[in-house]
């Protein structure tokens, strides 16, 4: 099974969640991070003095899915998150060895369903 991690704009939070739920991805975790990629930060002014923020607030969406669902999940995420502007975000894929559902003790792909 694979871990798919997508670093997206915060306002993508709701649409992605809905899209993934619709595709029957049974589990999902979301966290708030600060990120920098090619997208630059922004400037604020506090009493006339410039304050630079190099980091932008982003959400990280994390789903562990069975190998069979990896490509379809990625496609879905791209489809929803794509705007073509800098800041659309990135997706990373890595290996997961095992998963356990605490309630039932199920392991492996069974724990994901």
């Amino acid at each position, binding site marked *: 099974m694979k871990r798919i991690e997508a670093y997206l704009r915060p306002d993508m939070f*709701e649409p992605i969640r809905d899209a993934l739920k619709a595709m029957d991805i049974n589990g999902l975790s979301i966290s708030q991070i600060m990120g920098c990629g090619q997208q630059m930060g*922004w400037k604020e002014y506090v009493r006339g003095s410039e304050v630079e923020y190099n980091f932008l607030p982003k959400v990280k969406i994390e789903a562990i899915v069975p190998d069979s669902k990896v490509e379809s999940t990625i496609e879905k995420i791209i489809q929803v998150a794509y705007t073509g502007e800098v800041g659309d975000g990135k997706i990373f894929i890595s290996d997961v060895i095992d998963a356990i559902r605490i309630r039932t003790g199920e392991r492996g792909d069974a724990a994901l369903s």
Partner: protein
Amino acid sequence: MSSINTGDVAWMLTASAMVLLMTPGLAFFYGGMVKRKNVINTMMSSAFMIGLGSILWVLIGFSLSFSGDGLFIGNLRWIGMNLTETVDSARYLPNTVTFAIFQMMFAIITPALISGAVAERMRFSSLFVFATVWMIVVYYPLAHMVWGGGFLQQLGVLDFAGGLVVHVSSGISALVAAIWLGGRKNFGKAKYHPHNVPFVFLGASLLWFGWFGFNAGSAGAANELAIHSFITTNTSGAAAMLSWLLIEKIKTGRPTLVGLSTGMVLGLATVTQASGYVPIWAALIIGLLASPIAYFFISVVKNRFNYDDSLDAFGCHGIGGIWGAIATGLFAHKGFNPVSSLDAVRWNGLVYGETTLFLRQLLSIVVTAGLAIVGTLFALWIAQLLTGKLRVSARDEDRGLDLAEHDESAYPAYNGLD
């Protein structure tokens, strides 16, 4: 030595300071209710009125509202608070400048109330222009008509502390502005929830505190009328809080702090117009009914008609104000003013079997609503003319108005670490 009554002055200065604090209170009441990315914008949309409203008032507002004896609007003789020679000190109690100060605080908060309906989408510069125009075409004339000797006052219409001038006018204007602007980007799909409920309650608490100044201060003196208004105000606010909690208990089983705060504000808004004219038991009824009426509008009618009154400026102040105006026509009674020659109540209310007052109160609602609708459309039109467009772009709605309009985030440390 001064010939003014120091007790009256003490009370009116205190009351004025208390009413001033209501505008920051409103900023927290509204600011707590929006998303975290729109906090700065929402707070500023109330807060800037302290600046704009004060300066406009001193320059022309007081004069347009309270000088002369026009039927619809005052004249410009007191421009720049230049009243040294012309002032008739007996006309406004306890003294003309004190009265001007007290009334200024009302002029500040009224347009701030409207901002709740357009929150999370209106551009700050447009709101600035809108508020300026709206003051001149709606607020000052209305204050003059109701309190400055204008035709509604001459008709015997009753508005003790601003049910019409403040709440109905801002509430109706809020509705018009919300419809004109259209809903927020995901309105209907996205679910909105407050980002900081303690701030909502903090705001409501400061509003309650200030409301004693608002209503009891409207007696213009530290007399029995002020005392009476104080207790009717408190009673109605308390009753509406309880009835809101009861509704939630019945509907969902779960009373909430946002609900409690909303009920508080509703009960206070509703009794504003009536507070110096109705008995305590009537204030109890007014408050008890305020919550179910407004709840119905906010949770049923608003959804039916699908306008996006973001923070229920119409639902609270419009509906509350209208119910208050009607209630004044129902329950007003002569004799709460210790000086009977100053008693504004010429006829008793409908429940005592007299109809004159009741009908005139209905009329006053219509007049106020009409003026608010026309004036708001005009002010929006001017704002659009001068600032290009009234709304931020859809992209900026997503990013949040705090970054888009102000380049400032409310709690940078919670995103941006420290």
